[in-house]
């Protein structure tokens, strides 16, 4: 493992024998990427500020140390040209390579909508099934006091696109297994990650929960399309990703003390949805909430709600509720940002209202 900031580094050598190794999401992603680079020479990285000596190792340090092992032929720094990042990833994937493309902030994906939506998503179909586009695009989301253009959660723009798989990774164990599966998938996969979950800086916002997770050193793959039940409960199903998942877990803790048991589910894949896992839970609890940091209207929660109403309405004992960022651009002022994004308080209060 390459050195990173002291906060993010978990040196195995200091672990007592037999102790489980805990990694942050950034470390787990880095390990997954390194393993895939070693395994398959067709895998390469492409993005801005990812392999410059003395640079950042990507905007959030995920790639630190990789260029030293793999060199500039595998870690390809680009100009600030998002269309080229996505276009080059698409073209190389069409030629049989397996690029892992990096978008510094998910907000920048709007710079390359054509490449993702018109090209990557449609080439297999337009060719009558003759082509494959095995590309991975990683993009960090999440409000972190950076205002309107560096904090959006734009997953839902892409869940509307037939031809793009949309995945969120919310813990280190999933991050490693899912990224590795995404690299081996023959179709374009967008992986969204939350900035506050990379290391442990987001711990406070995440309700004080530990953001590291045990991550096996050996290789493992996880399915891209399988939701994870993070906490079992009988009264209300809460579907949430990223930071909202941790807020929901914190809310569940609080609600449990009142006798309300939440079943908290990380959907992992937003498109396609693992409705089997989701509806099994809804049929058990009879109540459904969706929590996401994306804005409310047209967010992916709307699709989950519509599908639930369609497919398990008669199991529902209360209206489906969504807790999301209000329909507003993100403000800079932390006090305003906190007011518009989901909070433990809002989740608790909405859950109470439907469990009364």
């Amino acid at each position: 493992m390459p050195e990173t900031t002291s906060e993010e580094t978990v040196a195995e050598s200091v672990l007592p024998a037999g102790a489980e190794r805990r990694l942050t999401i950034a470390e787990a992603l880095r390990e997954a990427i390194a393993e895939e680079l070693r395994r398959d020479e067709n895998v390469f990285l492409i993005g801005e500020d990812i392999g410059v000596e003395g640079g950042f190792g990507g905007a959030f340090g995920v790639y630190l140390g990789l260029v030293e092992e793999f060199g500039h032929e595998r870690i390809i720094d680009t100009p600030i040209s998002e269309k080229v990042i996505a276009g080059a990833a698409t073209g190389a994937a069409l030629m049989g390579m397996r690029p892992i493309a990096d978008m510094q902030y998910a907000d920048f994906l709007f710079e390359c909508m054509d490449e993702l939506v018109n090209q990557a998503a449609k080439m297999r179909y337009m060719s009558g099934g003759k082509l494959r586009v095995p590309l991975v695009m990683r993009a960090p989301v999440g409000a972190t006091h950076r205002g309107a253009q560096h904090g959006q959660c734009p997953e839902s723009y892409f869940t509307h696109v037939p031809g793009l798989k949309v995945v969120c990774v919310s813990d280190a164990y999933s991050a490693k297994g899912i990224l590795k599966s995404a690299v081996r998938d023959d179709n374009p996969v967008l992986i969204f990650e939350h900035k506050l979950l990379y290391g442990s800086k987001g711990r406070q916002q995440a309700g004080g929960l530990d953001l590291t997770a045990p991550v096996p050193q050996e290789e493992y793959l996880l399915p891209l399309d399988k939701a994870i039940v993070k906490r079992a409960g009988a009264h209300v199903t809460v579907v949430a990703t990223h930071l909202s998942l941790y807020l929901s877990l914190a809310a569940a803790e609080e609600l449990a003390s009142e006798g309300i048991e939440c079943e908290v589910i990380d959907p992992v894949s937003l498109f396609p949805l693992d409705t089997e896992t989701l509806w099994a839970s809804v049929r058990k609890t009879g109540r459904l909430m969706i929590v996401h940091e994306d804005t409310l209207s047209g967010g992916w929660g709307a699709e989950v709600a519509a599908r639930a109403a369609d497919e398990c309405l008669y199991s529902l004992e209360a209206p489906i509720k969504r807790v999301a960022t209000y329909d507003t651009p993100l403000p800079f002022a932390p006090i305003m940002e906190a007011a518009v994004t989901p909070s433990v308080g809002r989740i608790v209060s909405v859950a109470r209202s439907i469990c009364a």
Partner: protein
Amino acid sequence: MGELERLETERLLALYRQMLLIRMFEDRVYYLFLQGEIAGTLHQYQGQEAVAVGVCDHLSHTDWVTSTHRPHGHALAKGVSTRAAMAELYAKATGCCGGKGGSMHLGDPAVGMLPAIAIVGGGNSVIAGMGLAFKLRKSQQAAVCFFGEGATNEGAFHESLNFASVKRLPILYVCENNLYGASTPYTMTSALADVAERASAYGVTAQIVDGMDVLAVHAVAGAALERIRTGDGPILLECKTYRFTGHSRSDARGYRTREEEAEWKSRDPIERLGEALVAAGRLDAEALERVAVAVEAELDDAVEFARNSPDPTPEQALEDVYA
């Protein structure tokens, strides 16, 4: 020594035949479209044949091209079969894209052509990755990006050219400057007289060539591709050309004069090569006529094949969908 002297008669004849095939294919397709046999719309290639043919003659099936909303000529020149191209226009299951592409997305990976990209500038971004893949694999393959002068005002043109230059990618950018982006003249969209001038901003070698002269295109493209394959980086060719038809099938061409059209048509690339071949004593008029007869028969066969091919089933619309 010019191409006319340098090339064997067989190869010259192949250039002639390929251009004529494209011309007659397009004329036939237009007729069939008016008869109501072909759905959708058409963006046709008559007049520009020398560009696709002059470039693609140097490419093997392991070299790849991207094309545009006007792709019929590129597809035929790159080797998509006349039957598979016609069947695709007929929206048949036997088409090169199984009926999922249509006129604007003709292409076939088997011959090194992506489904044509009908977003202006779309191919310019994707080609960067194709060139990158070839470079990473040190495979000597070339990536060729066909686009119109209209695409040079898209961001993708600039991002791609800059990236290819700084990474020394094996890409031939072929700009077919046919003077009009739909109805808008190039002079209304750029203060520069030539697209080629833009290349110097990115440290890219550019060359202007008479796109109505297949031998000129052939010579320049051949030298450019040879250089590109050595790892010397991308080259931009600006081919000055003209589409004899409107932008699409519903275009009455009110934005350009009949005199201008006549002037360009007097430089018809097919007639020009035919005359040159006869004048050089390589072929006689009868030999050229025999080519036309053979092409006519090939098109009859393609139309017959397309008409008799099965439709795709409605259910097939849901195949090749994974998310």
